């Protein structure tokens, strides 16, 4: 009862337990619960501070009808220790009204005002001041409000009551924005007995991959990104994601990509549903897949790179891409492993085989000519015997307004090691090593 003082509440219910409100944590818990609800339907969204709204179109038959689905959901929430009020109705607004102010069951299709009419105006989700005004005028039920002419109603109370009535009765659409956007390619396994072991998870995943790959084959598609969602009995969802560099529907290959991550699934007290979905797919014909499976096309390289990326990280495997830039660190950049490669423009002067990630400022000893005769590198003094250069490289002012021009030299020490040095604003830097 909002606004009631704690002392009054205690007088009514002596065993009352009280705690501080924590809206942030409440909202987080609601989000978790919303993710968990994607076990029932992919279209789940949070609704206000304390509600969830699910679009179950086309779903109830999986559970044996709408009434049976509500019963299943009620039991599932009860297992989580959540006392939920549930309703299924034609519109989101009607479901909201029926869950909170009606009987909380399945509202028969096309019920309209004969069922919803007797509900209080609060069931319309009106702003509190409008609802209060309506009540004072004696308009306590939805039916009473619906009988009034619309124009004066709007003039007196603003557009909200009419708008809400229309939504309730399905005269205007109310979109649900889902928290998780569902993928059209999915396979799910509902587990009668919650699973706890890695072996069982492996088995279910293989089964799901088989099913999903069959589905993809029927539509001549291959997966580029897959997500595996594990729904725990305690209401948590854990998600693993993998990507492939080329479309695949080989269950064995996709399983290998998941394998290293599977240990990170914590089954808790058990997983009672697993859902596998392909977020990104591409057309893939049967013959392409056969070639890829035999590894004939590329000798298994694409699959090997997928495995490397799955273990080392997506950005840890890359190819060197030539860029239209003469600034040394920008001439080459990392590109995805199968990006179309560009040829390199031959440089004006020799380039080192190894470039340091960043130019390193050098500690130098100048000789009699004023040129560096000794550099300190890897904790050793290195006597330079020759310096070739300079090659002046100017910064690209539109990219690096703060950079100064650099004068590059190729220097050789007494052991024949050759360094790529540059001078910028009278400071010497080491930028690369020659072979």
């Amino acid at each position: 009862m909002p606004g009631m003082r704690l002392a009054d509440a205690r007088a009514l219910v002596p065993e009352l337990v009280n705690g501080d409100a924590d809206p942030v944590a409440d909202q987080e818990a609601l989000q978790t619960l919303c993710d968990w609800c994607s076990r029932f339907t992919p279209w789940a969204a949070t609704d206000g501070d304390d509600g969830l709204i699910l679009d179950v179109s086309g779903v109830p038959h999986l559970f044996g009808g709408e009434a049976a689905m509500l019963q299943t959901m009620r039991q599932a929430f009860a297992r989580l220790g959540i006392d939920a009020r549930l309703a299924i109705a034609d519109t989101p607004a009607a479901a909201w009204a029926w869950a909170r102010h009606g009987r909380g069951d399945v509202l028969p299709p096309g019920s309209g005002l004969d069922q919803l009419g007797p509900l209080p105006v609060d069931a319309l989700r009106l702003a509190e001041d409008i609802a209060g005004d309506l009540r004072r005028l004696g308009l306590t039920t939805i039916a009473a409000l619906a009988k009034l002419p619309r124009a004066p109603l709007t003039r007196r109370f603003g557009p909200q009551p009419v708008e809400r009535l229309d939504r309730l009765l399905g005269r205007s659409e109310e979109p649900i924005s889902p928290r998780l956007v569902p993928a059209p390619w999915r396979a799910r396994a509902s587990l009668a007995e919650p699973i706890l072991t890695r072996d069982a998870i492996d088995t279910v995943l293989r089964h799901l991959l088989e099913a999903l790959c069959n589905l993809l084959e029927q539509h001549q598609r291959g997966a580029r990104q897959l997500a595996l969602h594990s729904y725990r009995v305690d209401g948590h969802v854990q998600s693993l994601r993998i990507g492939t560099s080329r479309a695949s529907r080989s269950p064995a290959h996709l399983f290998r990509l998941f394998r290293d991550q599977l240990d990170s699934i914590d089954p808790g007290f058990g997983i009672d549903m697993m859902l596998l979905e392909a977020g990104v797919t591409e057309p893939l014909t049967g013959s392409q897949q056969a070639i890829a499976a035999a590894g004939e096309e590329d000798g298994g390289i694409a699959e090997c790179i997928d495995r490397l990326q799955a273990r080392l990280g997506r950005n840890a495997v890359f190819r060197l891409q030539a860029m239209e830039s003469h600034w040394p660190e920008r001439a080459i950049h990392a590109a995805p492993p199968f990006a179309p490669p560009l040829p390199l423009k031959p440089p004006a002067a020799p380039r080192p085989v190894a470039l340091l990630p960043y130019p390193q400022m050098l500690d130098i000893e100048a000789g009699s000519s004023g040129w560096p005769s000794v550099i300190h590198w890897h904790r050793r003094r290195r006597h330079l015997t020759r310096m070739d250069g300079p090659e002046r490289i100017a910064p690209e002012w539109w990219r690096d307004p703060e950079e100064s021009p650099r004068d590059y030299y190729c220097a050789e020490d007494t052991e024949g090691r050759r360094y790529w040095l540059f001078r910028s604003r009278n400071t010497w830097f080491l930028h690369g090593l020659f072979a």
Partner: protein
Amino acid sequence: MVQQVQENASAGVIEQLRSRISRLTGSGRVLTGKTFPFHEPHLDAALPWGGLPAGSLHELVGHAPSITGFLAAFLARVRPGRPILWITSEQQPYAPGLAAFGLDHRRLTIAWARRPQDRLWAFEDALRTPGFAAVIAEVDNADLTETRRLQLAAESGNGLGLLVRRDAAPSAALTRWRVDTVLGDGRSPRWSVTLERCRGGQPASWLVEFDHASLHFRLVAALADRSLAAAAE
């Protein structure tokens, strides 16, 4: 204590006998696949296979950038056009520099892994993948068991494994090379190249230059092979 010394000594003897047997019988396995030569007659003549054979593991130690250049020059002629995987932890090969050795950067895929065990894992996986022309891995150290696994992986994928390492622990690799810089003319790279170990072959050492114009190795001098090679061992 005495017991242990004796055990160590006998382990050493067994190892010596093993290596003698393997030298007498060759690699213990007939290498029937392709061989990739250096296209420098002296280097190729020192190798029983006339080059580095497919399906095998080789090691390189020495000056890291020189090894990179030496490998780039060699790989430019190994299965041209086919991809090469380069597994590294710190320095990335710089494509414009590799181009001077004839190696097209478009053949390269780089795999970056900080942890040594990840690099070894990636090396083994890639060696089993027949599509790569060669796989290079920079691994600080690897023990005998690990190199055996890598050698087996190279055999199964018929790949060419090139292990760039820092230590000189016993290894199952077919050859070990040491590449180091020598004072040159400052323009073309000059290296002392030592074949330190070669299964079924003899150690040898050369002074080698790389000619950027013709993209070929050029022998400057054959060093007093035995003494230098023996010193290196």
